[in-house]
């Protein structure tokens, strides 16, 4: 198990080298350059050239790449071209904001999605099954931005129950410790701010949870249907076990591996791809951070930001693979 984990972590190296190369060239392939983006269209060619030289972008690409990777190897993600701030420091609050949002969304998606899938499989072809599966289909096909706007319109604008944007009260900001506000306010014992943080999370996390919830519900249902036809389920019933335990004990653990795979992939997508939700709800997350960096041709921020997301994605999948072995004793990693 340990040897396997180490091997998988080593495999991260070629993945990251590949990723860094791809991002390095892709961002440079976009028309426009950082100097123009920073100085504006009207800047003189001399000024632009001077800035380009100052940023080190006049060097040949391999020099730039080697320098960048050299920094990475020392744990240095580089400095933003635009703000000159170290990216490691700049990126963390954004990453924490996205992490908090994605985690809450994922909890909603898993709790509702898995249970809807189970009940649909248990009462196959019932009205619950049909309703849940139609809703799941609607869920995967609904544009997030539309759902987000509707939420804001109904719950913030019309009913006024919940705040429509941001993650804190701008006039009374939360003191950051980890930048995961639910955690920070708990540490500080400030339950009023905890409530504020929670209220701000509700609408965006529901919007973000919709697609994973639908995907998880459908995956759980089909996996459960397959498992519930198997011989050992008949054995469990022949023992006189209650249907609830036949479903939640005997079936679910067997059906969970494909569901877990889906959860892992969706979690990765949420961390990297929450851009739309973050934009609609003005959530200061990593997606918005990178999009802004792309607009300013902030090469280093884009490179490092995407590399961080890729690493998280790979790590999540590693964790998922390790969890397989915890669920199914037949899976052994050597």
């Amino acid at each position, binding site marked *: 198990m340990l040897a396997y984990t180490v091997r998988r972590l080593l495999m991260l190296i070629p993945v990251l080298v590949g990723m860094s190369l791809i991002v390095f060239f892709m961002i440079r392939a976009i028309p426009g350059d950082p100097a123009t983006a920073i100085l504006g269209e009207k800047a003189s060619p001399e000024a632009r050239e001077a800035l380009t030289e100052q940023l080190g972008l006049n060097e040949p690409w391999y020099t730039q790449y080697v320098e960048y990777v050299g920094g990475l190897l020392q744990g240095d993600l580089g400095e933003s071209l635009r703000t000159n701030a170290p990216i490691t420091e700049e990126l963390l609050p954004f990453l924490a904001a996205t992490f908090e949002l994605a985690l809450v969304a994922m909890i909603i998606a898993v709790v509702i999605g898995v249970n809807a899938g189970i009940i649909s499989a248990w009462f*196959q072809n019932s009205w619950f099954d049909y309703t849940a599966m139609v809703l799941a289909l609607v869920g995967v096909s609904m544009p997030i931005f539309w759902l987000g706007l509707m939420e804001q319109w109904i719950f913030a604008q019309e009913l006024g129950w919940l705040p429509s944007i941001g993650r804190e009260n701008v006039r009374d900001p939360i003191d950051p410790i980890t930048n995961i506000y639910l955690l920070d306010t708990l540490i500080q014992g400030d339950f009023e701010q905890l409530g504020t943080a929670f209220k701000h999370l509700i609408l965006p996390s529901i919007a973000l949870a919709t697609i994973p919830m639908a995907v998880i519900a459908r995956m759980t249902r089909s996996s459960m249907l397959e498992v519930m*036809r*198997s*011989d*050992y389920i*008949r*054995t*469990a*019933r*022949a*023992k*006189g*076990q*209650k249907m609830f335990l036949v479903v939640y004990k*005997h079936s679910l*653990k*067997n059906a969970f591996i494909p569901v877990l795979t889906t959860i892992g992939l969706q979690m990765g997508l949420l961390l990297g791809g929450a851009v739309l939700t973050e934009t609609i709800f003005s959530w200061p997350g990593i997606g918005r951070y990178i999009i802004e960096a792309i607009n300013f041709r902030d090469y280093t921020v884009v490179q490092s930001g995407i590399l961080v997301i890729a690493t998280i994605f790979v790590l999540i999948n590693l964790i998922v693979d390790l969890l397989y072995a915890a*669920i*199914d*004793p*037949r899976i052994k990693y050597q």
Partner: protein
Amino acid sequence: MDKPILEVKELKTHFLTDNGSVPAVDGIDFHLNDGEVLGIVGESGSGKSVTSLSIMQLVGQPGKIVDGEILFDGEDLVKASEKRMRQVRGGKIGMIFQEPMTSLNPVYKIGNQLVEALRIHKKMSKDAARKRAIEIMKLVGLPRAEDLMNDYPHQLSGGMRQRVMIAMAMICEPKILIADEPTTALDVTIQAQILDLMKKLNHELNTSIIMITHDLGVVSEVCDRIAVMYAGRIVEEGETKSLLRNPQHPYTKGLVESIPDVRYKKERLYSIPGNVPTPGSVKKGCPFAARCAFAFDKCSEDSPILIDLGDNHRVRCLLHEEENGAELLQTSMK
């Protein structure tokens, strides 16, 4: 000994499909005496497994018991509530299945699966249940029972798994054990061991056993009485010796003649031509008529009724309504 513990009367289990009702079990009667081993014999598709699942009320969708009674100790199980059936399953009637490889839940330890029935039916404490589980494992001849408690099913051989299945079915000391092809998936030496074990359980614990099989070798080994099923009906029923020595139905005769005998090297083993008709496809007459070497005009018109030949021997064949029919049957089929 001759008091029936289980009586099945006019049992009809149909599969209600979109194309109409398919009679998998089409009105069968049999009884099981206290302490007796009854064999139910037939080819694949004759309805024997559906019969056993009907007794447990475990016929899966779209199967349904449409008529008849299943009297267990005088109580009609067809009318019993689901709650009552859960007490019967595993508690009063134990069941083992054909495929030991897939009938145990792969993700739970043997011990966990064994004590489950005790926890359900006897409300035993964990320690007491554990003790009892080790005891029953020793009874069914499993070596190093204590260690096995912590093993997973995939770590065991097929023979051992079937012993675990038997231990699991017997752990609450049910009055009846239904064994659905318990030896089919095992190799010959293990088959003999499992059959010996079943005989031992029958003698020592006075468990009544319904042995479902397509193997006449198995029934002659362990059964006191045999019921032969064909196309959802019982075509012949009698005590093992008289039925095998003197089969009164052409189908039984065919089955007996197709048993290989190592003492004689024959040119070719006898086989009954054709296949079991799909349930419901024979609208009138005897369902075996198309494959029967003794069929005459009446067979494709009239439905045969069960005729009592005396000495507990009953047969459902029109030949026995004819004058010289019984003599005709004495001629060889080859």
